[in-house]
């Protein structure tokens, strides 16, 4: 008899529900952010709706807070799974002084969290990839058993940074997992205009490292691939390139109108067929891990949590104007 996927991966039923809860909460936070934008309460947002499976499955294979995680702007579910609170996330949406990522200095979803080992990220796509290699080098030179996980979209693969960063990590067999969420668009540019090969994972061949493509809507497949890559990295065998196939259900950001370049049917079909939340929900129900009432409750709680977090963040104070002058250089007493 074949074990259920999560059993085969040594995930408990509780794990599965916790994964589902994280995905649902991420979805609720992103949906709330969209509402806040439409209400004119926040200036901008970007969501990871459709990517939650690829995100939660990946982080589940990491030791949160111990390993280094470098999420990109779609990674709401990643930072939740790593331990950021809904309120912390919402403080970022509202650009409040208490936003742990940047104190409101960066656009929403430009993550950073010292205590959780999430280095500060920027907007230029792909620049974090060599940082990941450098972090991997530090881990190796210091003899730590951390892994470094760096996340990016398919767009980043085109940048020189991708090539240079992976090349170095592969030469030195650094414990880095290069994690691409390939949603087949960089804003409007379809993957075929970005890449001569149909899969990002193929790029691994140039560096002599494993390249794996997984269905990003299948949280267990993602978890399995990640677990293997993490083990490999911890064994000192070097980096892995993982490509999780996803679909971006929303426009690129709140500034984008995706009707210009994506047929509605494509989006609708993806919502039906590639929604990781829906998929996991069906899995949970069909294997009796929870009842549909339990799931509805969980989902309702998530929406409430998102709403509550937004309320609190909205009420929190924005940074004061003159603080714009701070932290250009180290201040007295800091390092």
């Amino acid at each position, binding site marked *: 008899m074949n074990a259920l996927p999560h059993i085969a991966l040594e995930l408990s039923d509780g794990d599965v529900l916790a994964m589902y809860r994280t995905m649902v909460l991420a979805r609720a936070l992103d949906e709330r952010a969209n509402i806040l934008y439409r209400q004119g309460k926040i*200036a901008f947002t970007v969501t990871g709706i459709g990517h939650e499976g690829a995100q939660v499955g990946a982080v589940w294979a990491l030791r949160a807070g111990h390993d280094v995680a470098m999420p990109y702007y779609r990674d709401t579910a990643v930072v939740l799974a790593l331990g950021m609170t809904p309120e912390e996330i919402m403080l970022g949406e509202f650009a409040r002084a208490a936003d742990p990522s*940047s*104190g409101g200095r960066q656009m929403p979803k430009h993550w950073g969290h010292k205590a959780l080992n999430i280095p500060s990220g920027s*907007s230029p796509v792909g620049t974090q990839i060599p940082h990941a290699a450098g972090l991997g080098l530090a881990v190796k030179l210091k003899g730590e058993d951390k892994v470094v996980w760096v996340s990016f979209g398919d767009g980043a693969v*085109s*940048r*020189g940074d991708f090539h240079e960063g992976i090349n170095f990590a592969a030469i030195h067999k650094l414990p880095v997992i290069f994690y691409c969420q390939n949603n087949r668009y960089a*804003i409007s540019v379809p993957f075929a205009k970005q890449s001569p090969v149909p899969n990002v994972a193929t790029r691994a061949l140039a560096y002599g490292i494993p390249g794996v493509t997984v269905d990003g809507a299948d949280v267990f497949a993602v978890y399995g691939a990640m677990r293997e890559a993490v083990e490999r990295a911890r064994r000192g065998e070097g980096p892995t390139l993982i490509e999780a196939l996803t679909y971006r259900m929303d426009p690129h950001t709140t500034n984008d109108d995706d009707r210009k370049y994506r047929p509605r049917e494509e989006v609708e079909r993806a919502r039906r067929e590639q929604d990781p939340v829906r998929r996991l929900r069906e899995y949970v129900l069909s294997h009796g891990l929870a009842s549909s009432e339990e799931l509805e409750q969980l989902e309702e709680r998530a929406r409430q949590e998102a709403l509550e977090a937004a309320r609190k963040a909205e009420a929190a104070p*924005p940074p004061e104007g003159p603080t*714009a002058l701070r932290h250009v250089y180290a201040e007295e007493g800091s390092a």
Partner: protein
Amino acid sequence: MALQNTIETINSTLREIMEEDPRVFVLGEDVEMGGTFGATEGCLEAFGPGRVIDTPLAEASIVGIAIGAALGGLLPVAEIQFADFIHAAVDQIVNEAAKMRYRSNGAFSCPIVVRAPYGGGITGGLYHSQSVEALFFSTPGLKIVAPVMPYDVKGLLRAAVKDPDPVLFFEHKNALAYRGFRQEVPEEPYEIPIGKADVKREGKDVSVITYGLMVHYALAAAEELAREGIDVEVVDLRTLLPLDEETILSSVRKTGKVLIAHEDNLTGGIGGEIAARIAEKAFWHLDAPVNRLAAPDIPAMPYAKSLEDFAMPDQQKMAEALRNLATL
């Protein structure tokens, strides 16, 4: 004549030039769907896929490919989606494009245009608000234009595409500068020479030398000060490199007092060079220290409105600086 804003003017001028000259083509991220700001809206439909090319997300090669295409006889107009992402292309722009003619002793040229929307006041945060002109301002071989009035935009975009040397074309993307402000723009083609500043308002008490969004603020501040009896001359540089030293100096010689204003941070901004030229060449005409108004020395505009408002030079700060200088 049509009442046009800047982004519409860019779009119509690009189409006009592409229509005229089959060597002109555009490349960049998302240009096929019209670009994130709409600069290339309709170009794909009008000119077909060989003339409008979506590139991978890789700025170094957007410029590098443009350079190659120019060597191959085409006239590329490359778009960098936000000026904040031009840094990866600095090597190609500064070491390659700008030095092609010089290093080949005049045998090869590099007639590319690199368009980049820049500037703050859009709650774009550190990486969607930058002014990057200072990065390129120390590079002879390059030309840098930054017109802000639609009329100038049209004339200078045409001049940039026709120019036999590499031109950086910076467009201020703030709501007022890109879309809000409209002007009569002639439908027939015309060029404005690169390297010529324009006195946008004559005045006798104090000069403000500026460009970009700050031109709008300077003009508004000048109106404000006019009511107080202070007569401000507003010089819109339009071209940053080569600098129109003559227009700058003659304005300063006339008024004796000068404020140099830019949105970029103070230190290392191009205002320093302008001040230096004035302090050397119009020194004996100065009645007051050369003043500068600029963003504070922070790495880039922060996102939160409270922070950005604090950091951005605006009409009020401009008026205050001019008032202080005029009454000195």
